[in-house]
């Protein structure tokens, strides 16, 4: 089994190279010369997105930026060679320098990470804390009024993408009724507040984004828990448990519940990666200064070192998250032996 996981970790390397090479090539193999493209596209999107951007950054790339880009991508060199140069730098933890801020990319990303992690972890914790008990009680009282009523609400979150939920929340609760702020992570006077007020301030700003973040994963996790438990309740070993005289609650908690956690564990790794890297849609809507918003702005501003840097980090998180998922599955389900009976 450990051989299997070692192989999985080694396989990260070719997959990672594949992903980054793909995106790298896409930014290069574009008809009309990438730099000119970027310039015209920068002008066009500059006009479209003018309202969102500060006027300082300008609509065209400066001469200096063009030279930087040319040097960065090595446009005089073939794709593979310039990719190899880039990859070589990444291996030394050098993601290059942002063409917008003139700061090392790694610094910029590191600065934004805590915000994304805060929302990611909080969402993850609340989701599992609420969804597992909710799913269990829905399974145990299948078709009761509580089950049906909660299903109706959860179904809405399941059908709607989280960014639509976010937009609806912002326009109703922030703009229309003015209950919550329009966006941001903390208030301007955050540093002067005491601990309790700091906590309140974060909560005040965080409520709406957290609901939006949770809308998607909440429904999936609850239904997963419910369906898994219902499946397991109908399993043969539960009949055995009933036959040997266990009460239903004992049988459920000792046998069915544990087995039902397996599919939840499968989704755990993917969720980690998803929440760590932040959702650029939600961060854009709520104007939260995290990784997602950074990536979105970097694309708009054609800050390719940052775009590629974020891609490096999110794809690594996804790859590692997948392995963590498999590892967790193997941990909770001793029947699964990866790499042996395949």
């Amino acid at each position, binding site marked *: 089994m450990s051989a299997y996981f070692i192989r999985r970790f080694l396989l990260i390397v070719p997959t990672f190279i594949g*992903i980054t090479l793909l995106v790298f090539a896409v930014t290069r193999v574009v008809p009309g010369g990438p730099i000119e493209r970027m310039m015209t596209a920068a002008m066009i999107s500059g006009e479209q997105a003018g309202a969102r951007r500060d006027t300082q950054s300008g609509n065209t790339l400066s001469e200096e930026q063009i030279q930087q880009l040319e040097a960065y991508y090595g446009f005089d060199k073939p794709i593979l060679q310039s990719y190899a140069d880039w990859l070589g730098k990444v291996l030394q933890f050098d993601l290059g320098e942002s063409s917008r801020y003139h700061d090392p990319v790694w610094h910029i990303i590191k600065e934004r990470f805590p915000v994304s992690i805060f929302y990611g972890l909080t969402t993850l914790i609340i989701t599992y804390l609420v969804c597992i008990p909710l799913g269990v009680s829905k399974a145990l009282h299948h078709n009761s009024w509580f089950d049906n009523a909660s299903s109706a609400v959860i179904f809405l979150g399941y*059908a709607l993408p989280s960014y639509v939920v976010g937009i609806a929340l912002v326009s109703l609760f922030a703009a229309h009724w003015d209950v919550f702020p329009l966006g941001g992570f903390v208030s301007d006077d955050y540093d002067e507040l005491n601990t309790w007020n700091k906590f309140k301030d974060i909560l005040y700003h965080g409520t709406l984004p957290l609901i939006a973040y949770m809308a998607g994963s909440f429904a999936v996790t609850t239904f997963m828990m419910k369906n898994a438990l219902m499946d397991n309740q109908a399993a043969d070993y539960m009949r055995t448990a009933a036959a040997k005289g266990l009460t239903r609650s004992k049988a459920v908690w000792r046998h069915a519940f544990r087995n039902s956690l397996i599919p939840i564990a499968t989704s755990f790794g993917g969720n980690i990666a998803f929440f760590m890297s932040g959702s650029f849609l939600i961060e854009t809507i709520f104007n939260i200064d995290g990784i997602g918003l950074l990536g979105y702005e970097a694309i708009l501003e054609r800050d390719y070192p940052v775009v590629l840097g974020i891609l490096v980090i999110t794809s690594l998180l996804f790859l590692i998250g997948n392995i963590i998922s498999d590892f967790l599955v193997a941990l909770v389900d001793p029947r699964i032996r990866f790499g042996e009976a395949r």
Partner: protein
Amino acid sequence: MLRLNPVARKRLERFKAIRRGYYSAIILAVLFVLSLGAELIASQRALLVVYEGEWYFPTYGDIIPGETFGFDYRYETDYKALKTRLEANGEGLVIMPPVPYGPLETDLAVGDFPPHAPSLETKHYLGTDTSGRDVLARIIYGFRIALLFSLLLLVFNYLIGVSIGCLMGFWGGSFDLIFQRIIEIWSNVPFLYVIMIVASIVQPGFWTLVAIMVFFGWTGITWYMRTATYKEAARDYVMAARAIGASNSRIVFRHILPNSVSTLITFVPFSVAGGITSLTALDYLGFGLPPPTPSWGELLKQGTENLDSLWMVMSVVVAMTLVLMLVTYIGEAIREAFDPRKFSYYE
């Protein structure tokens, strides 16, 4: 009439028995057919003009210049003005569509600056957007584009997925291995992020956007088809077919495909929902279809930039909720029809 095999017929009956999903399917089909004739519901062109004893149906076809109806210009007739004129002097009849505005028509005549709030009087039932275009008209046309877009996406994704996946499962060997690696790479690419990068470089039109999204989206179905083909190919009836001398292509097309493709239909509603969702997200972020294409995402963007004008955001949110709920209900019902689980408890 299509002859269905007994299993499929049973599934269809089970699907019909799930009332919520069945009615959702009917409602969605009606909405889709209605949207195909959107020009008859929301347009600046009249449905029917009776002028000097002649009947005109301006909705489809070339523009009818204003001269025809006694105006002094040669560009397209302003039917709303014509209606007012003819009603005043009783010379003829103009019947306008229920929403007398086209999706691209800017209406700056009413009062102050757009966006205008919903009003029955001006017949902007859901108000106008920031350029004075009717929200309801744009929602109707946007629905048609979004649905056609996701259906096209679905067809291409499934065509590629089914053929490559089937070959992977049937041939196995190095072909399978190579595509396994490719799929592993593709499925780990952050989908929306990479599409945004591509779309920021190539300003996409409708077909380019379909191509880009197919390019990054075909892997899910491929993986499923590979597994399904593997399972089918190992079954006895395939061996029996081979024993009586059936060719490879016959085995694939007559035996394996019919048996594995039928379950693909359980994915269809969720693919459609996914298509609508991603297109709207891309439009919202400004990387989708080029303006002035009517689109829900673009309307959402305008709405979030003008939060005082709640009608823009709310119209899209309600429309999206409605459509996605219908699609999801259908999806759940199909899934249940294919996999009728009977739950039992032991107490």
